[in-house]
């Protein structure tokens, strides 16, 4: 099976972010970067599929400046076979612009499966995977929390709010992977050694036009805390109201 996994380099989310001087990006000073969490799961899924079949080829693709090679190397050290950097000065915020560049690269690749993480943990748009699928006219499953492949068909599950759904589709296909599906392995020492010798190809990214941009970034208001909303079970309706209208988590 020939599998492509599209991965993104993102800052470590444990960081306390600061807004850069331009007012529309995050200050890069002191940030640590790694593969986006969901993308790690996608790489793991690809490797397990390959291992299960006993053969196959996993290509990892990342778009961005030279630093993304570090992220690609990590995927190679986990066990991917080859890597492609689609070179761009920066990663646009616009999902369609990225999807166009990826589709151009993936179009003639002959992949049976194209995997993405469910979303990039930094920009949190969750659009590139399904957009790429549409551009390639391939069946698409998003946010797969489980995946089985047999006889050229896939069965996958997606978690919904308080429910789940099972969908079936033929390969080749584009699948975005939810967390929890398969804990990503740590690169072994031998894997890291081997990764240095694996091919990493650099090509210019054929980005689409950018229509979605960040005008400004700001930090959410600091937590104030200390608000007692009531006593005992009688306070529950007020809590539910606040969770819904103010915190917007229900």
């Amino acid at each position, binding site marked *: 099976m020939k599998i492509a996994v599209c991965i993104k380099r993102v800052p470590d989310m444990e960081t306390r972010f600061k807004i850069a001087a331009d007012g529309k990006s995050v200050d890069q000073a002191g940030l640590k970067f790694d593969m986006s969490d969901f993308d790690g799961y996608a790489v793991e899924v690809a490797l397990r599929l390959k291992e299960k079949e006993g053969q196959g080829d996993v290509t990892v693709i990342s778009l961005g400046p030279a630093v993304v090679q570090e992220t690609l190397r990590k995927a190679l050290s986990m066990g991917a076979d080859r890597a492609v950097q689609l070179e761009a000065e920066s990663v646009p915020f616009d*999902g369609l612009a990225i999807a166009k560049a990826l589709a151009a690269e993936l179009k003639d690749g002959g992949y049976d499966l194209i995997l993405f993480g469910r979303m990039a943990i930094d920009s*949190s748009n969750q659009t590139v995977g399904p957009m790429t699928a549409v551009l390639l006219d391939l069946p698409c499953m998003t946010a797969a929390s489980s995946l089985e492949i047999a006889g050229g068909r896939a069965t996958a599950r997606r978690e919904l709010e308080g429910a*789940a759904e099972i969908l079936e589709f033929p390969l080749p296909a584009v699948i975005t992977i939810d967390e929890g599906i398969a804990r990503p392995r740590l690169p072994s020492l031998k894997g890291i050694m081997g990764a240095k010798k694996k091919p990493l190809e650099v090509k210019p990214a054929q980005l689409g036009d950018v229509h979605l941009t960040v005008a400004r970034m700001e930090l959410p208001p600091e937590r104030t805390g200390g608000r*007692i909303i009531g006593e005992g079970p009688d306070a529950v309706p007020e809590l539910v109201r606040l969770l819904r209208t103010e915190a917007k988590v229900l």
Partner: protein
Amino acid sequence: MANTFAYAETRGGELRRVALEAVTAARQLADASGGGEVHALVVGAPGVAARAEQLGRYGADVVTVVEDPALDKYSPEVVAATAARLIDAGNFRVAVFSASAQGKDLSPRVAAKLGVSMISDATSLEVKDDAVVSHHPVNTGKVIAAVTLTGSPAVVSVRPGAIAPAESGSTARVESAKPAIDPASARVVPKELIRGNTAQLDLGEAPVVVSGGRGLKVPENFKLLEDLAAAFGNAAVGATRAVTDEGWRPHSDQIGQTGRLVSPDLYIAAGISGAIQHLAGMRTSRTIVAINKDREAPIFKIADYGIVGDALEVVPVLTEAVKEAKKE
């Protein structure tokens, strides 16, 4: 005058609350930008047309109903093709979806079919000159981005809960339409809808964490937290070190400096006093709810919402209320 499109999400033939949010958002946007009609799309098995009336009350001027026996479950390719065709054919400035699980699957497909970019998970929505302007949380909510989308139509998914559904009392014209592609030709086939899913999520990954401390008194009472987690459907159950050291819960469930560090959208601390060691593991949660008998407990100092009371009494009531809320 351009119109506004809204996708009305259903499950099992019933409108979801997020459908009303999308229609309300479209209505407010249309009103704020000088009028124009709101066209809502609802897709489902025959009978789903009955939902048009409610969509009208929430602000739809026109409800396009697509009924087909094969569309009793969400069929991504059919719905995407149908929505794209409608949006393409109409004079729409903005197309509003919910950033629900289904909406996040559907909206990028529609945008790509239309050849336009989109805004995801918007917490505000405004048309300014020739751009759509929104706020969108990035970096796990630690940063808010104000984003600008040019081009028309603009596809937007709105964060669930960001816009409260509001009735505006109109009656919608109902139009029926056929699916843009034959449901039987769809490559991605929905096989099953599993309700009341309580898949055990990993603590570090669950959007909601329900956590208990010594205030629960005996290990058996953790069942109350499991019920609350099940009511959320996307929750995991955690515990304090005191509890895991007692062996009430496995060590892997421990949240704190020496255990798991979590930062979910919602953290509910039940019967937890808030030792610094515990706070260190959860204080970056987006919203914190504390339920504790002791009004002086340190957990209240960092909680967004505190209820002074016995967790054993409050939690079951909360579980029922969450179940109710989730039904809508």
